[in-house]
Structures are given as C-alpha cells and as structure tokens.
C-alpha cells in the first residue's frame, strides 16, 4: 500500500521545515525514508538528496557514514530510544567515536560540552536514563543528534510526550541550537501550533500527499486548504470568541491508504467539497508567494501558470 504518493520537499541549511498531519498521513514514513530507515522490502521510488548526494542509491558504507554525521534523527519516545542499562554519557559518546571527527583529542570534554549545550549539567553523563525526567531524556536525545555536527536534523514528534512547559523549553532549545549551528531541521508533529511557533515553513500532509505548504505563520493563520483550516482550528486561540463553546473539528476519520476515495482524498470529510472534487486529485497549485495548495478552490486562473 502506498504510504507516500509523490512528495517533494526542500530544506535549506539553517531552515526549519515543519511537517504536519494526523496518524497515518505518511509523515513518519517520510522522516524514515529520508535516511533510508524503512524496513527492508519497502519500495521507495524517487530521490532523496542530501547536499546533492542521493541517499537512496548510495552504498551501505557511505550510508552509515552519512547517518549521524550528515543527518540525524530525534525520535519521539526518548525512553525507548535510549539504552536503559548504559550511562547517558557513553551513549552520546558512541556516535562520536564511530562517526565523528567531532571528538577531537578529548571526547569526554565534547560530551560535557554537548550536555551543557542542551541545558543539562555535565555530571548528567554519569546518569542512567531512568534517573532523568522525560524532558531531560529528550535533551539527551538532542545532544546525541547533534554529537557529530550534522547538516540536517529530523525530529519526529520530539515533544509530544512532554508537558506543555517542558515542551516549550525543548522547542526553544531546538530552535536556538539549529539557528546557531546553521542546521537544517525537519520537524514532524500533529500539532500545527507547535510547528508554527518553531518553523519557518509548514508542509501539511493528508493521505500520503502534501496538500498545502508555505510560510509557517501564513499557513497557520490564513490556511487555504480546508484540511489545514481544520487542523488549525483543532487548537483554538484562547480568547477567540468563535471557538468558545464551539470546538473545531471534522466529521469522519482519516482515510485508509488502502482504500482511498476517488478524486481528492479529502473530499468525504471536506466541508467545502463541490461537484468535480470526485473527479480529480488536484496537484499542488501555486497560491500566492511561496505557497502551494492542492485544492480545487485555488485552481490557478491561467492554466499552466504553475
């Protein structure tokens, strides 16, 4: 079954791109495919270029070198991604020893430095994961991701298991590190407001495709695709009269990728569907500066303008 259907995405150095969507929309598949981490047997077509080099066709040796050193991933469950019986410092050191030139003469100093960068005491290196809180563990994961000074960091729901306040701490930390070090960031979340507060650009996915993309603030406050509008309304602006005692939402459920509806995949849940939506699955059309939207309502006036 196709989890992704024709996704195009570009991330520049120092740019922060947010990918939003619900479970099953393909956003995590996209993250894993960027570093060829999908299970064997998965068919991936197309190209993934990292600094011009095609990740999908490179040899295993090169791929191993690229992971961590050129691009790294922060997964959502820090508890499950860290080894429970090894000290945190040793786990951060491992990618440095295997991949990095970053260790220098004194890898221990490098670990201490990384821990301080993510707001932990250097002494945290001696701790086991269970001795740390959820937020501290997520900080360790970020330190590991940065250990080999990668060019790209992919963060898959980096804060979704955390409390609001700790979530805000982690997001601000990621923002600062990525900006300071000029790293490209791909951040994945189901929460449009989280992505908007951190990212420059937003990409909204539905049923394996991109349905809207553009500058984060504009996409969030003035969405053009009805699905983006529903996602934005799911997290109300507090104080906004329209959402008081009036939660936003969509009837129905995200579609089953094995049984996609004819035409536009969003049509069965779409509040503004019209005749014709069942005929074409609209491509991403240009919709203003830096914006593209896959919806019949933003069809360009001149055919071929896109």
């Amino acid at each position, binding site marked *: 079954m196709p989890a992704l259907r024709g996704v195009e995405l570009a991330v520049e150095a120092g740019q922060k791109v947010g990918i939003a969507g619900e479970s099953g929309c393909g956003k995590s598949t996209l993250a894993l495919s960027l570093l060829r981490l999908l299970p064997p047997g998965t068919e991936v077509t197309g190209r993934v270029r990292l600094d011009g080099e095609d990740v999908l066709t490179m040899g295993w040796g090169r791929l191993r070198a690229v992971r961590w050193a050129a691009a790294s991933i922060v997964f959502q469950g820090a508890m499950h991604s860290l080894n429970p019986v090894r000290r945190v410092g040793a786990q951060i050191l491992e990618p440095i020893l295997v991949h990095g030139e970053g260790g220098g003469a004194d890898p221990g100093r490098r670990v201490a430095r990384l821990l301080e960068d993510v707001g932990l005491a250097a002494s945290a290196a001696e701790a086991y994961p269970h001795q740390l809180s959820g937020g501290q563990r997520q900080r360790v994961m970020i330190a590991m991701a940065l250990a080999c000074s990668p060019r790209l960091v992919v963060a898959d729901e980096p804060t979704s298991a955390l409390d609001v306040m700790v979530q805000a701490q982690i997001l601000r930390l990621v923002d600062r590190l990525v900006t300071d070090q000029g790293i490209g960031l791909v951040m994945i979340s189901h929460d449009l407001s989280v992505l908007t507060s951190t990212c420059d650009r937003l990409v909204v996915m539905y049923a394996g495709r991109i349905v809207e993309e553009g500058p984060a603030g504009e996409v969030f406050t003035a969405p053009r695709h009805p699905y983006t509008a529903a996602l934005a309304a*799911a997290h109300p602006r507090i104080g906004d009269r329209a959402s008081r005692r009036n939660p936003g939402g969509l009837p129905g459920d995200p579609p089953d990728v094995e049984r996609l509806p004819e035409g536009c995949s969003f049509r069965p849940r779409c509040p503004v569907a019209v005749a014709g939506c069942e005929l074409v699955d609209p491509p991403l059309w240009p919709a203003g500066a830096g914006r593209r939207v896959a919806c019949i309502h933003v069809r360009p006036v001149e055919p071929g303008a896109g």
Partner: protein
Amino acid sequence: MSAEPILSARGLHVTFPGRRGGQPARAVDGVNLDVHPSEILALVGESGCGKTTLARTLMGLERPSAGEVRFGGVALDYSTRSLRAYRRRVQLVLQDPTGSLNPRHSVYEAVAEGLRIHGAEAFGSFGDEEAKVADALSRAGLRPPERFFRRYPHELSGGQRQRVVIAGALVLDPRVIVADEPVASLDASVRGEILKLLLALREDSGLSALVVTHDLGLAWNVADRVAVMYLGRIVETGPVETILRSPRHPYTQALLSVASAGAGSAAVILGGEPPDPARIPSGCRFHPRCPALGSGVAAAAGVEPACRAVDPGALPGGREAAVACHLFPPLVERL
C-alpha cells in the same frame, strides 16, 4: 444551574508514603472544589501536579488522608456497597480508549458490562439490556447503534473507540462524568467531535463533567469554569472567560503564554522541571519558579518576604474567581 454543587471536595488531602524512607508525597494538599449540575469544569495542570490523583479521589478510587468528598451534599462513605452505588452516578472516562477497551470484547459487550455489574437497578425505564446499550451508543454518537454491536475495537477508528468508552459510561445514566484527558490520544481533527459530544451531553441530559487536562485550549472550547492546579493545590479558579482572558496567578499566566505562543518570543517559559510533591517549597509553593518573584514585581509590591515565607492558603471552592497569590490578597478582591 442550581446553587448546590453535585460533587465537591472539602479540605481534601491525599498523601502517599515516601519511597525508600523518603518524605511522603502530598499529591493533593488541601483542595476545595465544586462541580455543579450541568456544569463542565476543567481541571488544568502539568503532569505531577496531582490532578489525576484528585480525580481518582473524587471517584472514590483513592481514600483521602484528610477532608472529604461529597456527592449531592452527602459525604462519601467508603463501604463497598455505597461505593458501588456511587460509581453508577459518577463515571470515569480514561485517556486512552485503546487501553480501556478489552480487545476481545465486542462493542456490545463493552457497553453492557457496566449494566451487568450493576444489575437491575441500572436499567431504569429500559426493560432490556439491548435497548439500553443501543440508547447509550446512539447518545455517544455511534448511529445506528445496531451496526456497532458486533464490531471489535480493532475495527474502529480512535474517535469511535473513545465514543464506545463514553457509551460505556453513559449506559449507567451517571450525573457526573470525570474525563481524564479525553482527547489527548486522538487525532487533531477528531478531537473537536469528541468535545462537541461532551457539550451535547450536557445540553441534552444535564450531565456534569470534570475534565482533567493539560490543555487550556480544551478548557476554552468546552468548560464553564476552570481550576488551575499546581503541586497539590488549586492556585486559581473561576469562570473560563475571566481566568483565560485575564489570568492573575503568574503560573496561569505562564501556562497561557505557552499555550498561545508555543516557544515563541512572547512565551513565558518556566525553567526547571515540574516540582516534587514530596518536597513542597515553603511559603508560596510556586515561589522558586515564579516569574513575578524573579522579575522583581513581587519585591516592588512589597510581598516578596511573604512569597518566601507565608503559604497563601487553600482557595475556598465555589463559583467565584479566586487566586492564591500574595500579589492579589483576598482583601483587595472584596473591595
């Protein structure tokens, strides 16, 4: 809305013994709280603030170490028999519908289970089980109900599973629903539909709800009143529109700024981790993280010594707006 609360907590304390000889954890440390008929109250706080323990105590699942829980003005009696009758009137809806449903029970069995446990007294005007189950499913928005009877949890979407869990609560005709993060595990687009259901149930059946959540947006979407909990105490409470539009407690202000601005520059992000209920700070329990203390606002108002040394005390409960902060002494409020 009648004046008398249907469910209330008075001077409630719940203390758990310390681990490995440590200090006991005061998870709920002096709470007064009222839920009125047909009222939706949002209990808001970070993990570890005691909100889930408070909800469990209101359900009769934990025994308070001091204070009492009252239902319809009568203090809860912890005999097995009265607890059983009580749990028919006050029903719990948990966060994760997948974990709350037995994968080998059909939707019908899941909803009928409560009826079977509570026996004849639960049937009310409905003579038979099937009619009662169908009614509950359809009130929870699963229509036509018969289509869902023989389905199993894995055949349903996340939103439908949460509706089954809610139907399982509704089948006993409760007066109050206690919902612990009812939409936290659901997809964003499905969240609104479940919240609309809570509003509709209040409208149609006069159901009261205590919604436990970390999400202030949820409170804005559905609740009449909000109670903000920090380290075992309610630190600010009142009508949603008052508290969420003009919060007074620095903790509520920080939570709101993060809810509206995320990690953006306008957010007041508190440092450190949510604190430990086994080591509640002296004075105001929020003072070590308080932005008003850090920024000198408290010093300028002349209350800094009080912040460090004097506990502002427990709020009284009831419907009025109230805040436990030395910057807003109760005397000033009355003037």
